[in-house]
């Protein structure tokens, strides 16, 4: 699909690469984001990478859509530039009991056992496509095909903070209590977002994530360490 430039009002230019959830497309979005962030054309306020596009917010007092389209168009040629190294995060998750209210139903709908669902979910290395919906809310994929389900017909008014959820080809973590329609198959005791941290969101778009099953006792113990401010989520740098 050809790259398209679309206006979202007089302060946002959308550079659209496609209209699907797709790793190759995501790489192109993230690469352009990295190139722009490394040396932003004048007048750019901020950039937001998503599944399908990069949105560039700008100040029309300092630049214009026409100028930006030209500047960014010339950057699109640097397609072989590699983006920066990302992190691989190891996230502890309790897939048991009250932490996993939809696990049994997910197992029934997918014709798997709950244990198989956990093995498939915790055995996959996910890609963080984008953050959105809530501060620090990561959209991650792709789920093994056996776990793909539509959203719940009946969304919950209150999904607890820390819930690990799945829907369509994606998995996510709710950083805050909120309404939500995804299936809840576990929970993590770690804090996904804290505006007081130097990097407020734990994950960045382009990071990799894997989930490590823990039991309820480990959940309680990690939660205590998190509350005391002493928990470091295990992570490693990975080259792209």
């Amino acid at each position: 699909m050809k790259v398209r430039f679309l206006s979202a009002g007089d302060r946002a230019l959308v550079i659209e690469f496609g209209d699907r959830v797709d790793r190759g497309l995501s790489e192109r979005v993230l690469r352009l984001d990295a190139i722009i962030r490394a040396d932003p054309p004048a007048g750019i306020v901020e950039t937001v990478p998503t599944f399908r596009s990069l949105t560039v917010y700008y100040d029309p007092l300092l630049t214009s859509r026409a100028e930006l389209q030209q500047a960014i168009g010339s950057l699109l040629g640097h397609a072989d530039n590699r983006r920066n190294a990302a992190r691989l995060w190891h996230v502890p998750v309790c897939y048991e009991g009250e932490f996993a209210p939809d696990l049994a139903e997910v197992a029934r709908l997918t014709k798997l056992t709950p244990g198989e669902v956990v093995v498939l979910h915790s055995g996959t290395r996910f890609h963080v496509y984008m953050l959105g919906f809530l501060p620090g809310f990561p959209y991650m994929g792709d789920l093994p095909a056996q776990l793909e389900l539509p959203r719940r017909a009946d969304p919950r008014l209150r999904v607890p903070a820390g819930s690990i959820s799945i829907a369509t080809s994606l998995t996510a973590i709710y950083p805050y209590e909120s309404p939500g329609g995804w299936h809840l198959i576990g929970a993590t005791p770690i804090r996904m977002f804290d505006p007081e941290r130097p990097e407020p969101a734990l994950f960045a778009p382009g990071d990799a994530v894997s989930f490590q099953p823990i039991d309820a006792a480990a959940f309680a113990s990690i939660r205590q360490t998190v509350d005391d401010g002493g928990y470091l989520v295990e992570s490693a740098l990975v080259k792209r």
Partner: protein
Amino acid sequence: MTPGLKVLASGLCTTVQDLGRFGYQNIGVPVSGALDGFGLRLANALAGNPQETAALEILISGPTLEIAADTVRVALTGAGASLGIRGEKPRSVSAGQSLALRRGEVVQIVLGRQSACGYLAVEGGIAVPRVLGSASTYVRAAFGGLNGRALQRGDLVPLAAERASERSELRAPALASALPDQPVRVVLGPQHKYFRKESLAALLDTEFRVSRDADRMGMRLVGPPLHHKRGWDIVSDAIATGSIQVPGSGQPIVLLADHQTTGGYPKIATVISADLPALGRCRPGDPLRFAAVEVEMAEEISREAKREFANLAATLEPVPNENGLDIGSLYGENLISGVTAGFE
């Protein structure tokens, strides 16, 4: 003791807001900030502050505040709004001018029917910590402003200045009202091609109404349903403030300051930045019409709005005092010394 405003009654939704929190949308943090940025800037200009200073945003019904500082200079904006002052000298002062208040006076803020929101700026500003570069309150994630939430009875809104400076009061020529005489201007897209031709025409030819389903995140409009050509469930992309998204029901939602940063509904058009303040002033039940402009035009209108505001800020006029004297100019000419402006 910290100078402040003691909250005797909170009003419907009174929050600390500045011009917004920029640079964190990529990690899911909304811009937030004033719904009516024009009203905030004007209140600050009247109070003698830089335009981006944080102030109290007041929605629909206003708070009652007790002055807990020696003297405080405030300025209220919002068409039809007023301050009812109880104390030794009870009085009512209409919005659009600055005034000095003294310790113990109680101010009840009343908004008019012409605007859903008003701004109370305080000379020197509100002394709340900046979170991610902004004092704006984002209630959903409980950060910014005063403890990340709307004001509650018993709160003390901390102020940066212990007393008002000695200068004359200022007033603005006129306040903009909610209902724009002209249609709200939009740039079509980014997903207008997802809609049927007749629905695009309906957006621009029909009168919509603001529903009761309206808050700082967005306002649902009532009007003819807008029909998608293909599905209404798209792969998520970013949402700009002013985006008009259309979910499966066909009833459009205009996204405002606290909107989420990304979303999966097609966006038929985006309100131009210069018209966002008027939109923010709309109340449930208000009629709205839309007109399309090209992006180049929208950018030029934005530049023009900036120039117009600068002109307005430069032409604020002194308020004559009760005796017809301009106290500020007296100070300026050094005719009187040691007198503070009418509140000693």
